[in-house]
């Protein structure tokens, strides 16, 4: 039973991280209709920038976090302005390949500048002790992860609901041409989308980096983020969160109980097998919009 609770907690924590990464994919798809396959790379660059400000440049903690947020926001803005705004409206393969290539680009760039050795966040983040709640050992970072991810998701919802630019984003998600006619600067909305997406990845990066250490292998979280977004439906926020939890729990439980039976690789492969059968049943995801097409 203790093992089960432990696996559940770590599944929820990992699931919420996946959910955040998936939200990064979903908001981009909703407003720009680009399937963002780059979360792997964006996560890596966010993690390395966060690490750089904290360790390399010895910034104080709060300042380092703010500086990292500003830096990733600039990366997201540039990303939209330099590359992706030219790909809006092109055949669907072009943005898919382009974002994937950006993943590889960031992988290569971080490798070039910081090398392939895994890096660690400082002890106040990465070296959290394990707390015992009624005999169940839970790493404290997992609890923080659950709390902060939940808060971030709530803040994101509030942003869309209550602010003007969130409203503009929702209008753009509905229909770009209408949004333009209403006087919304669509290009600015697109840039905002990418900035928010990058900030989400930064939050992911802090926690994943604390749990696993920072290296180029972080992009696996990004890959699962894509899977989660597709599983939940590319147009749906609740879908991304629910699917994130589902995939996180499936991974934790399958890895915990079935690894002995089905081999060690099953924890990594299980989400893909789920996805494959999902594509027969509901290819648009749990909550995705099934488009009615005309000739």
């Amino acid at each position, binding site marked *: 039973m203790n093992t089960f609770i432990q696996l559940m907690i770590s599944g929820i924590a990992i699931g919420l991280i996946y959910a955040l990464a998936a939200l990064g994919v979903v908001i981009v798809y909703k407003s720009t209709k680009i399937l963002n396959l780059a979360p792997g790379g964006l996560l890596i660059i966010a993690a390395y920038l966060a690490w750089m400000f904290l360790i390399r440049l010895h910034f104080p903690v709060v300042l380092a976090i703010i500086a990292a947020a500003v830096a990733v926001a600039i990366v997201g803005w540039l990303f939209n302005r330099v590359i992706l705004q030219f790909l809006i409206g092109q055949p669907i393969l072009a943005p898919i390949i382009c974002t994937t290539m950006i993943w590889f680009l960031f992988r290569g760039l971080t490798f070039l500048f910081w090398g392939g050795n895994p890096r660690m966040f400082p002890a106040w983040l990465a070296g959290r002790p394990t707390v015992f709640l009624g005999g169940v050992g839970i790493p404290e970072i997992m609890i923080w992860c659950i709390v902060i991810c939940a808060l971030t998701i709530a803040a994101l919802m509030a942003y869309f609901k209550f602010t003007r630019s969130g409203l503009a984003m929702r209008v753009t998600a509905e229909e770009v041409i209408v949004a333009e006619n209403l006087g919304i600067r669509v290009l600015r909305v697109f840039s905002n989308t990418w900035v928010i997406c990058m900030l989400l990845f930064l939050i992911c990066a802090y926690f994943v980096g604390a749990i696993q250490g920072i290296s180029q292998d972080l992009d696996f979280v990004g890959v699962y983020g894509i899977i989660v977004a597709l599983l939940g439906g590319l147009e749906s926020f609740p879908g991304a969160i629910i699917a994130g939890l589902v995939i996180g729990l499936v991974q934790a439980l399958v890895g915990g109980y079935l690894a002995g039976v089905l*081999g060690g690789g099953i924890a*990594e492969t299980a989400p893909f097998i789920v996805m494959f059968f999902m594509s027969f049943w509901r290819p648009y995801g749990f909550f995705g919009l099934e488009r009615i097409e005309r000739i």
Partner: protein
Amino acid sequence: MKGRPCGVFDVRYSQDKAILRTKMHWALFILFLIFLFTIPLFLGGHVLSLGIIIGTTMIAMFGIQIMIGYTYQITLGHAGFVGFGAYVSALLMHHLGLNFFFALPVAGLGAALYGLIIGTSTVRCKGLYMVIPTISAHFIFFYLVNEVFKKWTFGSEGIECATPVLFGFAFNTDLRYFYLVAVITLIMGLLVKNLVRTKAGRAFVAIRDNDIAAEVMGINIFRYKLLSFAIGNFCAGIGGALWGHYVTYINTEFFPILDSVYYAAFCIVGGLGSIMGAVFAAVFWRILGEGVNYIAPLLDNILGGTAGNVVSSMGLITFAVVTILFLIFEPRGIAHRWELFKQSYRLHPFNY
């Protein structure tokens, strides 16, 4: 229909259907064949091995050209199918001791069967959602090789691929292997070129342009999508098997997810929807890779001190930048430039 050079008129259907239409065409083709089969005799081992790798990539690229370029079934798992073919032929030769020239088509058929299983998802999935089953296919391939059939594939230790032997003649040097690959590449190229001109090929194009309209016009789109998957992955399997027996040792790390994306990306760089595009794609990709391999150590010397970081990251950065530049500035690929060049050559004295 593509233009003809000035003064060339088709008076018979056979002329209309010919792949090589004019005498000039024939002359160039024969010259090319002579060039292809004599030049290796004078080349060093390194260029030959590059040629072999280009050939095997080209065969796999024909497959992805059929799937993406002609049917627009987006696939990001092509390297998985390439690996599947390589493993099928390696296993057949290793455990059953079959001849390579029997194992090669079986490898293609095995990959095609795997493609058919994955392709059944097209019954509900389409457009960008095709990313899901195809990427899953790649990871399921890893899982199959490393965990499920570990007893036969030896998991991550890898498996040896025997040297192909035909009637006692072993293809054990680069030169001999080059001729083998060249012949098979030519045959596959001819098959694929003809395939896209048949009923199936036209059905593929109809599905690519608008699948609902194609269905309304009576094309069984599920069947043709499956056919496209089968043929595309057949090519992948053949290419993979040839490549595997050239490097003589394979494991799953030779078929990374990276390569799957590169296949699709360089298909765009080469040009979607033309067989020439696949040829350009394979040549461009492998020569670019070779150039990077050549330049990266030099750059490493100049920049210095970063413990080989340049060498391992240069490929990623170069390929990414080149592909992104192509997507932004020439989304129709090299094949489009080639068509423009041919058009201006045909009209030579005039410019329209």
